[in-house]
């Protein structure tokens, strides 16, 4: 086997690991959250059981559902899968990272969201339209902030490729860059909004009138819902791994040896667990914002990202 095919095999394995581990991360978040809130916690495997249950269930479709409604779960899952393939999880320089850079990654998410919103409108219920309009409002504010934060990092790396950017940070070692601090804060805030977490959205709510993401997918069930839920879990993991890759990449494998790869797996596991715990603390101490405060929240994220960019231009380049 030549090195090219080893690399592709590894890339496929990494993507597979990514999508298989995503429910585990969700389970871990739920478990830690329960412990922190004095509640009895489900096993970390619970999301897998839920997905298995949903896949086995019979599908109930609204009478006026078009082909679009049936196709969207696969489009969403496909787009998220492609996004997951582009993000370095345990090793950099995998061939899949060359197929997409950060801008395409944001595009994948936008594609998934666009079709979710279409499907929500397709059924014609009030909640679908309401959820779609809210989600699009949030997205229109979150995407510029996200791009701005990522561009700050890209300026340092002189590339929008994730793998290259990660490697640049890795080689630079522990350097305190003010621009990175701003970008990190902005990206954390955007991640919270994009993944529908508190204080922007509440993934655990049962109140249909307050929902953002959940309102759009209220009519989905069975395997369709399983795919959408799974895609949401992968999305959360993508954002977590992105933050790790950009700001704390130490431990990720830059060569394809067994030892480097196992260190990579261990490092990313530990970092994801820590990051999830931070998310849980954040979600426990904060309350959900009034919907009309979300623009301010994301405006602040954008401002931070912009500050990061300015800091980069003023302090870090041209030296």
């Amino acid at each position, binding site marked *: 086997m030549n090195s090219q095919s080893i690399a592709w095999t590894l890339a496929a394995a990494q993507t597979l690991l990514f999508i298989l581990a995503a429910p585990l991360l969700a389970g871990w978040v739920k478990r830690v959250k329960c412990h922190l809130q004095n509640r009895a916690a489900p096993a970390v495997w619970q999301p897998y059981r839920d997905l298995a249950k949903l896949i086995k269930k019979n599908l109930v479709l609204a009478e006026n559902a078009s082909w679009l409604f049936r196709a969207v779960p696969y489009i969403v899952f496909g787009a998220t899968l492609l996004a997951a393939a582009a993000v370095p999880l345990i090793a950099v320089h995998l061939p899949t990272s060359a197929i997409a850079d950060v801008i395409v990654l944001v595009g994948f998410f936008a594609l998934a969201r666009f079709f979710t919103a279409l499907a929500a409108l397709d059924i014609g219920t009030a909640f679908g339209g309401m959820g779609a309009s809210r989600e699009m409002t949030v997205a229109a504010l979150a995407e510029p902030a996200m791009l701005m934060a990522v561009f700050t990092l890209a300026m340092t790396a002189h590339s929008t490729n994730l793998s290259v950017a990660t490697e640049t940070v890795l080689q630079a070692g522990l350097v305190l860059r003010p621009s990175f601090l701003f970008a990190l804060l902005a990206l954390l805030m955007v991640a919270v909004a994009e993944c529908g977490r508190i204080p922007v959205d509440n993934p655990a709510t049962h109140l249909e009138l*307050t929902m953002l993401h959940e309102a759009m997918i209220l009519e989905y069930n069975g395997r369709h819902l399983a795919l959408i839920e799974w895609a949401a879990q992968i999305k959360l993991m993508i954002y977590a791994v992105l933050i790790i890759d950009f700001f704390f990449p130490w431990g990720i494998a830059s060569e394809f040896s067994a030892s480097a790869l196992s260190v990579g797996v261990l490092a990313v596991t530990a970092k994801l667990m820590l990051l999830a715990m931070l998310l849980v603390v954040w979600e426990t101490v904060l309350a959900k914002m009034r919907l009309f405060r979300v623009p301010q929240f994301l405006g602040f994220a954008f401002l931070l990202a912009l500050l990061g960019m300015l800091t980069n231009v003023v302090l870090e380049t041209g030296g």
Partner: protein
Amino acid sequence: MRLDEFPTKFPKLPGAMPIWHGAVDAATFRSLCEQVGHGGGKLVALWGSDELARDAGYALHVSLITAIGMLCLTLPVNAERPSYPDLSDLFPGASRMQRAAFDLLGLFADGACDHRKWMRHASWPGSVHPLRKSFDGGSAFATETDGYPFVTVTGGGVHEIAVGPVHAGTIEPGHFRFSVIGERVLRLEERFGYTHKGIEKRFESMNLDEGAKLAGRISGDSTVAYAWAYAQAVESVTGATPSPRALALRAVLLELERIHNHLGDLGNLGNDVGLAFGFAQFWILKEDLLRLNHDLFGHRYLMDSVVPGGVARDLDGKGCQRILEALAHLQHEVGTLKDIYDEHAGAQDRFLSAGRVSPDRAALLGLTGLAGRASSQAWDLRAQFPCAPYDQLDVRMATHHKGDVAARVTMRFEEVQESIRLIRLLLDQLPPGEPCTAVGNAPENALGIGWVEGWRGEIMVALHTGKDNRIHRLHPHDPSWQNWPVLEHAIIDNIVPDFPLINKSFNLSYTGIDL
């Protein structure tokens, strides 16, 4: 208004509460209601009864609060053309009660502007009135399509959001029709009746003893209040007097019910703003209390604890001790949690100014109970018309004037602390005596009214007796009748995603009004 200003002298009903009752003609009926309405009084309940068996047509009853107690009026209604003067111009809250009275008994409110059906959905035709004695409770009809003309709001960019009666969470069924522009609510219209169970009809097949159990199941979260109101009504018609010990224990039970409902609501209000921490903490406290209820009184929600004549289970010294210990812990925990809620910027940002009902509007619409007290409507039976044992306790009524979600949250915190104080006082001087005394038979054609300040507001049970100790007609009244229409006003100009929070801050009963 003073009662001696009334043109007619009414006899006072025997029993614990200051209630006067009299039969009047249509003109006096309307003018007395006007006097009460203009004098700052309120409508408590409106219900009808079928008196054809006594050859007296139908009857319409209203109970009103005046400065010195309740005035209950009975208006005979012609059997051929059953109608009575409309009261909804004096008391806006009367509208739905009148519509329900038409659906159930065919009594028509002359001059009312809203004659749409209220209780009736598709399961019986409009010409049938289930509460008439000629109606057989077992009859079934072919289901028709349920057409209901909602008020439509027109204009550029206005659209409707229809929510319920099936919701995403496990809650009671109710339909909410929002007319909105973007996220801003222009109008909300409610539609209920989905849990109509025929409770009132069922009562009429029971005797006074059997009725006690059903009365405690009208609205599960207010079972003590309903059971006590029913017991008061029975004791009024039979002349039974519960022992001071029984009355003290009833008050302990009622305050325990108030505490566990408020704890649950405070948790749910936290949950609705995404503060799952608050939800978990309050529900732990509530669960501890429910388990204590179960240990001491045999039922987590205290069902069947209050019976006509007294209480079903006595409390020994050890039981008192356990309650006092639980309260000490509770007081400390609730105090800490209040600090956390008060200082939580995110939660306060959601609570403050959301779902505001100004004192003026509350007075106009007759907002009552806990929600009323949060909007300066200072009515609390325990403080104003205290029956034993409250007459010994000097209940401190909590009131606020802002009328927003934050005020209703604060009300709950203050009422929990007050209830803890009251239970301590009650247990401290628990009088000796029998927990339950025997109740005799009731005379025929008597009226007994029970009136109790439940956690949601004042609960009334009106009992008309029949032959052989049977129930001729029973009308249980929940404060939700008055408060649901006010919720439609509270949400105006708020945004759609704030509705669940505002709704929860009122936490009104569906089953209590669907009956």
